[in-house]
């Protein structure tokens, strides 16, 4: 099963490689990984999307907690949470595609953030599955380039990951 794991860690050189190294050394999956400093510059917040059996996820959480630079770990799937990912898609916008792409963008509540003679660049946020759905809805021949940030997640309501 897919899990989204949030990690609060020391914002230090090498911390990212410790997490990435742990996943590769122990043969855990990484579907996506995002990291950036938090409002407290000494801390970074990382979101990892991974998958595995309950036993594997339990081990992942324990192994992450064992890393000296990791301050706190939360499996977002243990409660209610919100997941968002940002995607930029450059699509063909010539001929019939020009209207078609605008319509698809509107349907998925995306925004066109760059317009050129032959292409649009569309910005879309949502859960990973929404972004997948958008790409599937497009004519493959229209997609010129995609870039995705990987998922970020946050607990709903008073579920807070903080020091």
């Amino acid at each position, binding site marked *: 099963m897919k899990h989204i794991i949030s990690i609060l*860690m*020391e914002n230090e050189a*090498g911390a990212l*490689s410790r997490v990435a190294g742990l996943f590769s050394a122990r043969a855990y999956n990484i579907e996506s990984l995002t990291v950036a400093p938090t409002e407290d510059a000494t801390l970074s917040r990382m979101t990892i999307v991974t998958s595995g059996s309950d036993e594997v996820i339990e*081990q992942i959480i*324990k192994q992450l*907690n*064992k890393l*000296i630079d990791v301050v706190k770990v939360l499996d977002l799937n243990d409660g209610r949470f919100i997941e968002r990912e940002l995607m930029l898609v450059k699509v063909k916008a010539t001929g019939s595609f020009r209207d078609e792409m605008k319509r698809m963008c509107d349907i998925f509540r995306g925004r066109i953030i760059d317009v050129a003679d032959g292409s649009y660049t569309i910005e879309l946020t949502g859960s990973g599955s929404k972004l997948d759905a958008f790409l599937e809805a497009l004519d493959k021949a229209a997609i010129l380039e995609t870039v995705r940030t990987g998922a970020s997640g946050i607990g709903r309501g008073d579920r807070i990951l903080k020091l």
Partner: protein
Amino acid sequence: MELSGAEIVIRCLQEENVQYVFGYPGGAVLNIYDEIFKQDKFKHILVRHEQAAVHAADAYSRATGEVGVALVTSGPGATNAITGIATAHMDSIPMVIISGQAPTPQIGLDAFQEVDMIGISRPCVKHNFLVKDVKDIAPTIKKAFFIAATGRPGPVVVDIPKDITAHLGHFEYPETVELRSYTPILKGHSGQIKKAIKLMLEAKRPMLYTGGGVVLGDAADQLVKLAHRLGFPVTNTLMGLGGYPATDKQFVGMLGMHGTLEANMAMQHCDVLIAVGARFDDRVIGNPQHFYNKDRTIIHIDVDPSSISKRVKVDVPIVGHVQSVLSEMNELLDAENRTPDTAALKAWWTQIEEWRGRNCLSYNRNSDIIKPQYVIEKLWEVTKGDAYVTSDVGQHQMWAAQYYKFDKPRRWINSGGLGTMGVGLPYAMGVQFADPKAKVACVTGEGSIQMNIQELSTCKQFHLPIKVILLNNRYLGMVRQWQQFFYENRYSESYMDSLPDFVKLAESYGHVGMNIENPADVEGALTEAFNLTDRFVFMNFITDQSENVFPMVPNGKGLSEIILAEDL
């Protein structure tokens, strides 16, 4: 007054009350070595290869419980140290390894003797640090010692660029360490402990399975008290030997791939298993699917939460320092004054004694050729069971573990997790420094000993009266055994040809050498060697080439699929 970074390093080690630093100089650590020259608070032990420095410091720690310290230069010095570091990491040995690094401005430019030590050591350390400013040296070393020694212990690398050791800075050694991201749990959860006690008292077929955590956590006394009070059988893992006295009647021997029949069968058939500081590894329980038994309840005490339910699902996890948890269990039992199910225990012991009666460690005592098991038994007798025994890796290691009855913790020093050939001699060095008057035996094979044979020179320099017990069967014995059993006698590259004359080799380093080829000479030779209390003696026992280690649980099989010598 400001000190140089190198002086600060030395002052930190002195503040940590370090007695010995095992190391090897080189360009990037010249400043540090210059300061070592000027001080006499700790002793530097010059080895002949960096790997041996780390092994010796590791063994010093295993024997004393103190943090072992090694010092190596950058590049090849650092990479040579890696095997030693990985060995210590697998066995959870607290160590601080200081490595030199190329000067800060040159890092990343492929400088001479530059290697990314932080990257290369990362998977085999508990933690590592690159020091980028002279003011960080003292706080970093303080943290390194703290992290190494607390929680589940392990090696910590401190990588220091050469220019940092030359820069000047103010020295103040921090008194305490605050790490918001690292707060090891010490005390076990009281509710879980009570639950465990209840299960233990109701058990019909209980079993205490204890590992290296009892030795490292200095919990042997608490374990003995608990076991004696409850009358439960006790088995030790390879790493746990000495954690429970081997001559005690409740001890059923080591378990695992080469464990005793009684230990493995009791492990498989018990109804309540109390695992203490052990991690159910593949060499211990074999195949986890076979090990699984729905009628067995498992209690697992360990300081490392990630060791719990890793290979085997546990019913009652207790995260805490084993000494603290076992003490609390003893206190609870004292307070409640309840006793276990004695009738059921009696029946359980009858079953165990039946297994024990199979005498699974018997071997041919009337052989004309020296049997390796016999050498170890005589070693135990001659040293009155009171020696430190280090070993290398292979058949001789298993025989030493099976036939030397360790009654005290920290006496059996071997590479359990990583299985590093070549540790035996440097381990013996570290132990002899830790306890200069002690009898130290290095049980080894002709394959392993040659992996760090250069240390004969270090032993000469420091007058270490180690006794090398070489069980020389002219084979990489364990490899040969597997090839015999599982590869239809195709002995691919397992014969050790062109061996040196070990007696002459020892003598060339100024040591005493002995060849022993006759079983009748074994005891006399051992006695003679140990009587040479101030000499290093290299004993070359020519042993039976065809001897195999039994019992054996074949790889991937279950504990009750154990093979005894008599089965073949």
